[in-house]
């Protein structure tokens, strides 16, 4: 393992401190328990709190700020945060209109947020994101995983919350965006959890992992490495098949296309993937009207990328386009 580390146990604290100092105009950091909030507490709105294991940066702290999150709770690398973090964050950002948790659908995250919610003295509800269509057989799973589509949910719900909308309205929009979003990821290399010190999985130069999760957990199939167009073809087909299976039409449908890097794939390659995905979706009658390309939900140093398609409607488009001012997403303000 070759990484920029002083002491493995100090990585999280040092990284969070660096983040909070670099973006001190936007956020502030509290330690023990760890959570980050907006620099200036927002008033008279639903407080949006997300969180999860670290290693997916800029998710979630990078999305704290106007038009998105009020607070984020970072856990250890790839390990969900603990309820005391969520309780302290909620206490700090609560503004009389309730708390909305946005949680990626992983057993650990769900349970820790659930226990926090049970102890919370405020009105609250939760949006569970589950956009990963790589987990095919839902009979044998705890459900689809929440991956890069979470960013779209956080952006849209965050925007709606700024208008003073109710907790129920925010929850409804979050659920709608999640339902209308599908993602699939592919890994070319493993990632290395610093405390483990070696790659999470073995993969040769001639292989790829189709349907990989954002923790380097294996997907469904180990496949032979091939040219980019052929890989994107299979990913696009998987996403279209997922919408079809859920009776959501993609024909002449305006969509947001997100090509997300896992941490070690250059932007140059991500735009190449975007180019192919855009062409293939268009050939299938999908109208790509909004796009986002970059590292938005990463898996430490994994090489690879995910493709996410979100079926827009007027409401989702308006909230996607609305001003946002965070460390990782900023436009219109």
């Amino acid at each position, binding site marked *: 393992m070759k990484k920029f580390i002083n002491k493995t146990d100090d990585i999280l604290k040092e990284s969070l401190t660096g983040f909070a100092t670099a973006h001190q105009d936007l956020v502030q950091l509290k330690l023990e*328990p760890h959570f980050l909030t907006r620099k200036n507490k927002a008033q008279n709105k639903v407080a949006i709190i997300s969180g999860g*294991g670290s290693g997916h940066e800029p998710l979630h702290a990078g999305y704290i700020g106007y038009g998105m999150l009020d607070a984020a709770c970072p*856990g*250890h*690398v*790839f*390990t*969900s*945060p*603990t*309820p*005391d973090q969520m309780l302290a964050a909620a206490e700090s950002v609560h503004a009389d209109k309730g708390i909305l948790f946005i949680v990626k659908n*992983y*057993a*650990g995250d769900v*349970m*820790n947020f*659930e*226990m926090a919610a049970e102890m919370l003295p405020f009105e609250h509800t939760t949006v569970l994101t589950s956009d990963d269509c*790589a*987990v*095919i*057989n839902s009979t*044998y*799973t*705890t459900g689809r*995983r929440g991956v890069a589509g979470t960013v779209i949910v956080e952006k849209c719900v965050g925007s709606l919350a700024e208008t003073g909308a109710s907790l129920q309205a925010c929850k409804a929009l979050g659920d709608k965006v999640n339902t209308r979003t599908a993602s699939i990821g592919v890994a070319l290399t493993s990632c290395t*959890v610093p*405390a*483990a010190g070696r790659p*999470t*999985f073995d993969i040769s130069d001639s292989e790829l992992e189709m*349907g990989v*999760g954002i*923790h*380097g*957990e*294996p*997907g*469904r199939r180990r496949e032979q490495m091939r040219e980019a167009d052929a890989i994107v073809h299979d990913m696009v087909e998987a996403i279209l098949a997922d919408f079809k299976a859920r009776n959501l039409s993609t024909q002449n449908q305006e969509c947001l296309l997100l090509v997300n890097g896992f941490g070690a794939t250059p932007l140059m390659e991500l735009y190449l993937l975007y180019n192919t995905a855009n062409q293939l979706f268009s050939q299938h009658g999908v109208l790509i009207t909004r796009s986002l390309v970059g590292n938005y939900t990463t898996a430490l140093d994994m090489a690879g990328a995910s493709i996410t398609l979100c079926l827009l409607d007027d409401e989702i488009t308006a909230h996607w386009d609305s001003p946002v001012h965070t460390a990782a997403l900023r436009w219109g303000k």
Partner: protein
Amino acid sequence: MKTAFIITAAQAIQQTILANENTLEALDREIGDGDHFINMKRGASNIVDMQAELAGLSPDAALNKIGMKLLSTIGGASGPLLASFFMSMAKVLKENGDESTLKIAAAFAAGVQAIIQRGKASVGEKTMLDVLVPVSNQFVLLATQNCDTKLICATLIKVAEEGMQSTKNLIATKGRAAGLGERAIGHIDPGAKSCQLMIEAVCKQVLENESR
């Protein structure tokens, strides 16, 4: 049950977790995300570090404190699940007392029930429950029959081992390995392995105390 025993059991658990670093890491890399050992190590060391604080508490209060500590230090799925176990066990011990093996077995069973409720899982889904449920059932049965402590511990060690081995040929339907489908077959579940190790360590500790 004495609080002093809970402390020595926690030390025994920490030792077995540390001694099995390679096994636990390898299992979790195969079908999980590679953090199980790190999380268990962090949880165990936090409990051992608070032994002075625990020493002055009643057994149920000590177990509840352990649960709260695990909840705020482990994270992941193991944190809430193990925390639910200890907090529920503590609650039942507080209500019913801890002066007989049967009462301890009943409290243990309540703890396992809390894990089932929190994780919404059951036996056969390739999780820690494949170890804990058979152990709990056997514990209550043997305690009801007034079996001696040596027989109970020896049996539970064996039942835990069998439960752990049984996860090898299961498809995971809960937990991080659930996305793997049939690819999880042939791999022992890391959570089942760590539970088996903990039960073995605690039972051996009881046997050691008995033989003194």
